[in-house]
């Protein structure tokens, strides 16, 4: 019996993926600019990072029940979603401004102080965009898979992993003017992947043994249930362990395969984490009750709604 309950759909997960990846890319762009200077990240990456965040924002809007009223999500500064929406807007703006510094024909391309300042904002807002999905999910006390600080670390790490991988991919397409970061990026991505791998295993172990029964039940499908093949075989092995090896082999083809695997794993992770939030702390008799509700595709319901 699968309880029927309306929850966030795949578009929000894909929003988290693109916005997180864009945020992670902006963090790297900003840090590299602040400490090493310009021209060390690919121009494609500089432009595509804010566009990824914009794509995430677009998906977030499409997920709404009333997309044309989307401006209203900016109105409650106490809500995490509002903070996230503002930070996405800022990340898009500062990211695009920073990217234009790479076009030498533009008069402001030589304004170093302004460029450094914009880079600082890229780091700040990129970091928030990369982190806030984890904060948003981790605060749900009644969603045992999500609840707790672990989600924050997992989403931030995944955003930085996918962000650094996307940088690597952009470097393969259009290498930056100065190449020293390009040689470090695969090691950065591999290190973050190793951290992510270890932290996910620890997260599962903590949920299984250290917290409530509800949390232990919530992760059961990931450990040895429906999602276990995807998690162990897909996400951890093919999406983390194999890319670590591939990223340590200095070859364009091995980087390309590694990056593709990392990005697919990042997407899988978000879709399945959002889906796992479907498991709520059920009230007495509620799971059985919801399991008996029609899902919407039953013949009698279709016939009824047609009239």
């Amino acid at each position, binding site marked *: 019996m699968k309880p029927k*309950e*309306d*929850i*966030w759909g795949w578009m929000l997960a894909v929003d988290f993926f693109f916005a997180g990846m864009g945020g992670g890319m902006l963090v790297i762009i900003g840090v590299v600019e602040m400490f090493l200077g310009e021209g060390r990240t690919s121009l494609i990456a500089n432009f595509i990072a804010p566009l990824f965040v914009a794509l995430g924002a677009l998906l977030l809007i499409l*997920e*709404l*029940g*009333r*997309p044309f*009223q*989307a401006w*209203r*999500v*900016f*109105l*409650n500064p*106490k*809500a*995490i*979603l*509002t903070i996230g*929406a503002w930070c996405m807007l800022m990340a898009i703006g500062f990211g695009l401004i920073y990217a234009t510094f790479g076009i030498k024909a533009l008069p402001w391309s030589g304004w170093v102080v302004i460029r450094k300042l914009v880079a600082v904002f890229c780091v700040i807002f990129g970091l928030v965009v990369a982190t806030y999905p984890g904060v948003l999910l981790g*605060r*749900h*006390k*009644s*969603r045992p898979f999500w609840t707790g600080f672990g989600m924050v670390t997992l989403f931030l790490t995944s955003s930085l992993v996918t962000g650094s991988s996307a940088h690597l991919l952009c470097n393969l397409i259009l290498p930056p003017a100065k190449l020293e970061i390009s040689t470090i990026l695969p090691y950065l991505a591999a290190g973050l992947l190793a951290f992510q791998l270890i932290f996910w295993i620890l997260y599962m172990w903590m949920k299984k043994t250290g917290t409530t029964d509800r949390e232990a039940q919530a992760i059961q499908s990931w450990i040895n249930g429906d999602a276990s093949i995807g998690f162990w075989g897909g996400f951890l092995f093919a999406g983390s362990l194999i890319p670590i090896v591939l990223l340590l082999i200095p070859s364009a083809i091995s980087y390309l395969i590694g990056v593709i695997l990392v990005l697919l794993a990042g997407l899988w992770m978000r879709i399945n984490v959002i889906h796992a*939030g479907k498991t*709520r*702390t059920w*009230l*007495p*008799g*509620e799971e*059985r*009750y*919801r399991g008996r509700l*029609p899902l*919407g595709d039953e013949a009698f*319901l279709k016939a*009824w*709604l047609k009239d």
Partner: protein
Amino acid sequence: MARYAMVLDTRRCIGCHSCTVACKVHNDLPVDMIYNPVTTVGPVGVFPHVHMEFIPLLCMHCANPPCVECCPTTASQQREDGIVWVDENKCVGCKACVMACPYGARIPNHEKGVVQKCDFCKDRLVLGKEPYCVATCHQRARIFGDLDDESSEVYRLVNQENVVRLLPELGTEPYVFYIMD
């Protein structure tokens, strides 16, 4: 100012779902929306003393409603009398409140693109009437009133009976109380 609360006496509830139907009719809800389901637990006990329990569920009108805090548009609001409600004109259907509510009390209306919920029939309260589910319950399993009024039945039940709240560990402080067997 009143502080509205409801007591659900599960010893009296027979699981007839009259309240569910009354609510759907009064609020003119689409077929896939239910504000106050009645769940079945059991059979409980040891033969021959076995019985079924019926648990009516609805919005708990919490003192600390997580659904209000998380709403990015301020569509989810709480009145001074404790009633948590949704201003449909402001709601964009982001479902943040659906995810935040531990009681599954918020339902997306796919026709309107907004989220809706039980509001203790505030339109009836203005007229001095009880919520429709309370008025419909022929077993008097639902008792509604002002918890700040010491002469009210809800005040007496909450203070004299062995009432419980659902998921008290979450700190939401529901204002719907249950009298269990």
